[in-house]
């Protein structure tokens, strides 16, 4: 293929070629970054919770007095346990992807000097640890006597289970067992390490903090009531939750059911990531329309060029060029223009990523997105130009003899 004649022909169509090139460049920049944004959102949405999501539901009530809480807890747990299909009912303050009631800044020393960031304390009554279904990877399981009653917001001293991620963050490379977590004057001692337990609102405190959770055993009471974890077989969980709503009206007629906080963990997860899903949809739509518009632009200009050069094509055909020659001429021309666009586009993509990093705390665009974007635009360009190029190849040599 001879590139020199194509280049010199392009020089006569500088403006149009530049326009297509710029369009490709912008498309390349947006495409790479939009794909990267999608990948980030999808990764966020697929965060592992570490709990048995399919068989858990949360039920929340409010509108009763603190002094009634022991009584309410007893009535509600007894009532819910009587529902056929319920495997367990326990009291748990925070719920994965639901309400966040145990976020606290912690330190790793009693003086409060070594900050450990804000972590989530899942404060749970007997049975809740088993219901959540997380796996213990080190240390001991919680015993009945670990669940002590307390007053105030949080127990002042208790054994605690921490996630592997949190332990790695607080004491990198050390054995976390026996270490202490402080939030002056509260003091908790690590007795076990769990595989994974997601915080209720992952990504709120920044990337990499989604697993900074601890499980704190306590006896239900005024500081731990009104929020229940129901476990049932995955097939039963929706029906059980429906029945549970009716049960509440009977066993705690004075309390107000919080519909937002009364959902299966699966549904809570759905609504927690609703925004991300919408955003992913928008990004996909933008990419699709962007590629479509770019392709149409290429088709439009290429058709124009084919029409404008009919006579020249005819002449070339008359003096011996094959259809294949004409076809590959237009394909090469398109490849050159698109390549120019991609070159500028990569720089633009990088700049756009820098802006996104600054304003949206996005990580750096991995370099492999650039060749991926380039290949898709090359393909798009070749596809778009194929129609006009085939029409050009179909120009009969006899055109050359007319009206010269």
């Amino acid at each position: 293929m001879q590139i020199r004649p194509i280049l010199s022909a392009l020089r006569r169509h500088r403006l149009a070629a530049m326009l297509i090139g710029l369009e490709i460049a912008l498309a390349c920049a947006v495409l790479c970054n939009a794909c990267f944004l999608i990948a980030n959102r999808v990764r966020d949405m697929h965060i592992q919770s570490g709990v048995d999501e399919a068989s858990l539901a949360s039920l929340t009530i409010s509108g009763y007095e603190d002094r009634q809480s022991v009584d309410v807890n007893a009535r509600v747990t007894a009532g819910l346990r009587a529902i056929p299909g319920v495997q367990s009912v326990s009291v748990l303050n925070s719920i994965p992807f639901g309400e966040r009631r145990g976020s606290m800044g912690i330190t790793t020393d009693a003086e409060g000097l070594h900050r450990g960031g804000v972590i989530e304390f899942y404060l749970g009554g007997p049975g809740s640890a088993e219901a959540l279904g997380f796996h213990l990877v080190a240390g001991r399981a919680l015993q009945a006597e670990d669940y002590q009653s307390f007053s105030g917001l949080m127990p002042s001293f208790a054994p605690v289970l921490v996630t592997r991620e949190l332990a790695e963050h607080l004491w990198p490379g050390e054995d976390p067992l026996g270490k202490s977590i402080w939030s002056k004057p509260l003091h908790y001692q690590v007795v076990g390490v769990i595989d994974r337990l997601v915080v209720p609102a992952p990504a709120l405190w920044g990337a990499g903090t989604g697993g900074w959770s601890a499980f704190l055993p306590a006896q239900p009471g005024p500081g731990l009531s009104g929020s229940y974890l129901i476990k049932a077989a995955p097939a039963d969980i929706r029906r059980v939750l429906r029945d549970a709503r009716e049960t509440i009206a009977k066993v705690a007629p004075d309390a107000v059911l919080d519909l937002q906080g009364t959902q299966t963990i699966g549904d809570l997860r759905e609504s927690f990531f609703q925004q991300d899903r919408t955003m992913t949809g928008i990004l996909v739509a933008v990419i699709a329309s962007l590629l479509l518009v770019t392709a149409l632009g290429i088709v439009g200009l290429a058709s124009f060029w084919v029409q404008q050069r009919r006579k020249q094509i005819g002449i070339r055909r008359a003096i011996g060029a094959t259809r294949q020659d004409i076809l590959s001429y237009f394909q090469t021309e398109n490849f050159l223009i698109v390549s120019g666009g991609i070159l500028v586009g990569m720089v633009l993509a990088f700049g756009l990523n820098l802006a996104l990093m600054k304003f949206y705390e996005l990580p750096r665009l991995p370099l492999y997105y650039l060749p991926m974007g380039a290949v898709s635009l090359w393909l798009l360009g070749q596809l778009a130009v194929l129609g006009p190029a085939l029409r050009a190849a179909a120009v009969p040599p006899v055109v050359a003899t007319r009206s010269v």
Partner: protein
Amino acid sequence: MFGYYLELAWRGLRRNSVLTALMVLAIAVGIGASMTTLTVMHLLSGDPLPGRSGSLFYAQVDTDPSPEQRKQPLDKLDYPTAMDILNAHLADRQTVVVDSAVKLRAPDASLPPLMPSMLSTTADFFPMFDVPFQYGGPWRAEDDDKHARVAVISADLNARLFQGANSVGRTLRLRDTDVRIVGVLAPWRPSPQFYTVAGGRFAAGKTADFYSKPQDVFTPFTSGLEINDGNFYQFTCWLPPSTPGHLQNAPCVWLGVWVQLNSPAKVTAFKRFLDGYAAEQHALGRVVRPQNTRLRSLMEWLDFNGVVPSDVRLQTWLAFAFLAICLFNTIGLLLAKFLRRSGEIGVRRALGASRAAIFAQCLVEAGMVGLLGGVGGLLLTLLGLWVVRGQPVAFADLAYLDGRMFLLTFALAIATSLIAGVLPAARASRVAPGLQLKTL
């Protein structure tokens, strides 16, 4: 002449209907996407109290005794500080706000108990923030001092409990206390719900909830604290509160204080008062960083909290990048369209049309594409806003097109197509008549 150009443009557009449709579609989709996101942006980033916001200020004093350096004071105030600022009565108006969920029953209505959000504030809140009333009015300042059991309710709650009738004088049961309704608000939907905004910088851009509807029940601050004692949530604490939910003597920040200052001199004076107060408390040992006070105006406070959700901003950027691509596309297509008619242009030039005339004719044609694209864009914008309204976000119900954005849609469409038209039109007007006539 303009009429003649319009006719020519119309003929030109019809001659190549596929190409025309492509251009119109590209502009329409670009405009639709940009205007949908721009409308949402405009609704979310606007001034909730135009004309007034400049005289409203949010007071902050850093009362956290932790020794480390803090660049910003905490977003809310503890009880003693809020009361000291309020009781100084140095501003033209001052108020304190705190919201809490409260159990509500209406003895007259046969509804199960509700848990609406209640705002406890002072009488100044209503005139300060221009809150409209449908029936009755705000409580009086002495009701605040007397811990009066009165309440103002929202239009929504009034519709729910009393079918929208005048409910002034009727009774509501808040938790265990009966309160008398003294006022019913007219529909009021500030965007955002600015007076409770706080903590935006810790929200990682997920700030859609700042745009939720105002509370359903408003009670005097003093009464609210008694009625719903034990159910107040702290913004943050430096030590755990001894009685959760009762924060008057707790080491926690949980109150927002707003002041109205009608002149720049008063703003300076009030800032000096805050600094003086912090210095005095520093001398008493309660405040560690006395220089860390702030008096931000309403818009500064919203800005500081980054109230516009980052996703919305991202969508706007995306839409405009997309519009730019559509613009390049249209330039290319218009260029093809005009140059394809080089012969015709050559004839016109040969017959005496000036370059300016050719240029004008081409621009009219481009403008017409823009107008058609604008109509399509408007329809797509309405569709886009309808989709936004269907989303489960707090600001969904706000997403309507107003007159200004309606006009902007057309302005943007025509501007886009004219910008797109300039280059091709200039190129077309430089067509050499002789060369073209020869090839005819």
